[in-house]
């Protein structure tokens, strides 16, 4: 497909990288030459310098014949304008990043004029993810499927714990609940385990489980942590606003530390229930004064990654039960791995998964795609996809043990009439089910029927 991306910032670059690997023809437009050079040098894409909202530049970039236009510049207004221009020039689908919640209403009002296929808000998505983690502090990552009924959670395996050295078949016996380990991170590599796999200390396992079993799972694994009642946010960014609202609504005590006075005033206006502190969050003395030692969770959201990492390290050092760090940069994730009480959140990965899902559904050509959700995990190496089973799905009602599912594909969960089943050989797909599939990202699944080895003749 021909895709034009306007804005080559962090989100833009991640998207470009992901979409280019999926085999699409990309043209990237940005007004800064410096930002473009990285994409031009390392990705097989065409770059153009200039204002993406200019019609002549869009024409030159081939927007009129493009399948999709994605506007992810730093300014919402530019993004919306880019999409309107692109739409007028004849681009079929447009996606804009719109960050300010003030524009939500306007977007709704102008939906016909804007003609957006999708609008994404990375900060809101990130806030939602952080909120999800705070509800279950035992897990370092949590993805939800089937309207929240099925979950994939990341659990670190500690050395010397009872999980260390345990083969998978025994694990299922020991846990006494049906869960499925769908991916294991070991020494920077990702393994999709089979029956003979043995866990080792230092691994991070990604477990699929019904939401209702999560509490039992925590109990069995002795991962219980006190419920988080108070949260400290360092940095009053947009994520802090979204997150603060969610946390206050959930009845948690929220304290936000922000060093810019005007921003503090705005935050105070928007979040009346939160305590807004005008102080420098990078000073450890300030953090102690504000009661860092007593909070249940520390979340670092400043705009500078290095600051976030250092403040988080300090928080862990003091023994804060849950520390979440926001990281924007691309290069850090490789060596910053989640540990037992620290999680790393990267808004751009979330957004690019959402857009990837949209693009793959577009490719599918069917009027209504069966893909419901796509989550990229473990730094984007593994994907968990949710599909709806419809009448076109093959091998309906056949026991899974007889279905030729391709190698490297895991059927992680089936959701049927509000019930989540962790499938075994005798389970089957039924029309109306939601199915969660886990696989490596290079498989590029776009339809449920792609998981079968042999396509039966119609």
């Amino acid at each position, binding site marked *: 497909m*021909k895709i034009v991306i306007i804005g080559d910032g962090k989100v833009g670059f991640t998207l470009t990288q992901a979409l*280019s690997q999926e085999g699409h*023809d*990309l*043209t990237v437009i940005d007004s800064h*030459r410096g930002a473009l050079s990285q994409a*031009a*040098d*390392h*990705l*097989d*894409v*065409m770059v153009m310098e200039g204002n993406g909202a200019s019609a002549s530049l869009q024409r030159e970039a081939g927007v009129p014949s493009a399948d999709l236009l994605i506007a992810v510049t730093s300014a919402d207004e530019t993004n919306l304008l880019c999409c309107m221009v692109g739409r007028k020039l004849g681009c079929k689908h447009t996606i804009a990043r719109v960050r300010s919640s003030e524009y939500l209403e306007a977007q709704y009002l102008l939906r016909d004029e804007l003609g957006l296929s999708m609008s994404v808000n990375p900060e809101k998505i990130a806030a939602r993810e952080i909120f999800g983690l705070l509800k279950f502090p035992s897990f370092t990552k949590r993805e939800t499927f089937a309207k929240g009924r099925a979950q994939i959670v990341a659990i670190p395996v500690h050395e010397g714990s009872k999980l260390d050295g345990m083969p998978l078949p025994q694990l299922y016996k020991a846990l006494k609940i049906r869960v499925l380990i769908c991916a294991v991170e070991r020494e920077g590599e990702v393994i999709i385990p089979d029956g003979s796999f043995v866990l080792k200390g230092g691994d991070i396992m990604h477990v699929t489980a019904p939401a209702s079993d999560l509490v039992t799972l925590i109990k069995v694994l002795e991962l219980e942590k006190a419920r988080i009642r108070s949260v400290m946010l360092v940095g009053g960014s947009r994520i802090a606003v979204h997150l603060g609202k969610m946390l206050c609504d959930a009845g948690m005590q929220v304290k936000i530390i922000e060093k810019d006075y005007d921003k503090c005033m705005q935050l105070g206006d928007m979040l009346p229930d939160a305590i807004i502190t005008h102080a420098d969050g990078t000073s450890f003395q300030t953090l102690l004064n504000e009661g860092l030692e007593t909070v249940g969770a520390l979340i670092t959201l400043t705009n500078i990654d290095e600051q976030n990492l250092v403040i988080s390290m300090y928080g862990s050092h003091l023994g804060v039960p849950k520390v979440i760090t926001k990281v924007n940069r*691309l*290069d850090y994730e*490789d*060596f910053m791995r989640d540990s037992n009480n620290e999680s790393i959140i990267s808004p751009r990965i979330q957004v690019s998964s959402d857009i990837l899902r949209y693009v793959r559904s577009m490719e599918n050509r069917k009027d209504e795609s069966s893909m419901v959700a796509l989550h990229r995990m473990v730094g984007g190496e593994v994907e968990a996809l949710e599909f709806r089973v419809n009448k076109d799905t093959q091998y309906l009602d056949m026991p899974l043990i007889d279905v030729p599912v391709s190698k490297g594909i895991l059927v992680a969960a089936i959701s049927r009439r509000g019930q989540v089943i962790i499938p075994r050989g005798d389970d089957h797909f039924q029309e109306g089910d939601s199915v969660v599939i886990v696989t490596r990202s290079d498989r590029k699944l776009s339809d449920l029927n792609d998981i079968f080895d042999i396509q039966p003749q119609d």
Partner: protein
Amino acid sequence: MNYRMIVRMLSITLRIVALLMLPALVIAMCCHENAAVLAFAVTILLMLFISLATNIFKPQKTTFYAREGFVITALVWIVLSAVGALPFYLSGSIKSYVDCLFETISGFTTTGASILSEVESLPYSILYWRSFTHWVGGMGVLVFLLAVSTYAGGKGDSMFIMRAESPGPQVSKLVPRTMQTARILYLIYTGMTVLEIILLLLGGMPIFDAVTLSFGTAGTGGFAVKNDSIMSYSPYLQWVITVFMILFGVNFSLYYLILLRSFGRVWRDEELRFYLSVILVSVIIITLCVLPSLNGNVSDSVRHAAFQVASIMTTTGYCTLDYEIWPQLCHVLLMTLMVIGACAGSTGGGVKCSRILMLFKSLRVETQRLLHPNMIRPVKMDGKAVPDSTIRTLYAYFGVYCMIALSTVLLLSLEGFTFETSVSAMLACLNNIGPGFNVVGPAANYGSFSVFSKLLLSFNMLAGRLEIFPILLLFAPGIWTRAPKQKTHTF
């Protein structure tokens, strides 16, 4: 420096060149040229063997950067020339290996400078290979590699190679994918070559001549299959070649724009306008100059003037008559055209029109800056500001160009030839033209130079074709450093 990746790319190139040599082998077999059959067969097998043998070095990581791009390009061209020379040597067509090397480098770099005084007695297959090197070298063997090999062409890093091999100050893609871009370039290239072959056949040229001369025109090379170059062909055929030489000297991205029907952008292209006006003005001046010597025959004068101007400006190097006898003004004018060269992104050599144009514009801005010291005014090409880094590279290019030119002339003068011979030999090789003046004039050849001078001129040809920097960087200290062994980080 990612050595294994460099070896891998060389290995793939050898395989592809072995493939490209097959038609020559077939011709040799059909014409029962036994020595040539053996020579081609041995060369092809040798290349395949080396390619397979080096295949065992699996690169640990396949990413590479600008420095690898330069080194790959330079080494591919050197290795290519070394093996491309083998058929000449093994078949006994050319006696000394240095001469073979000179001839092959001259072929691949589309120079067309020859050490042979007599070509008509050579086997057909050897003549075919000699001309075919022009065709491959014109668009670039690495661009061909990018077009056919998913291993090389499907990567983001491939632009480093494309930039290092394609001529011009600013190399850009036509479409998002490098592989697609390379394919489009070769498609246009092949299409135009076939068109020329057909037009030449229509004019009654024998098929072998039509094919080889079209290869020479397409690559703007200049190897002919007759001793007197193009002299003995009919005026129609000479006109066809003239037009196609000019066409192959145009930036190929403009042809893509024509295919896309954006004629406006082609028409407004400043480089094309400059290129065509220089040709037009030169043809008029030279026509006026040579009218007396051709007994006032206007059509002959225009034809010869146009042919020579096109041939020299596009750095092809065919000739329809011995311009040695023309007045001095024509000599100097032709020498100037040698330096200007064809358009960027074409198959031609020289400094390139866009560089000259940019230089003029930049010099004008700099002069104005003397009057208004704080003035800010970007240099503009086609209405777009040229980045300062491009201008800086441009000046560096001119600096290095002049230094190489001067030192080459200095070293050539050891031979004791006239000043005009030394200068024109240097210009003809550095700008990939072929014939110069006096001793190396259109009716003569490079056979009388010493081994040292031949190697020096070979270096000049390579430097000229690859626009100096890739070749020069091979000698840069620090480029051959090996990274300390460690876990690799990729992002």
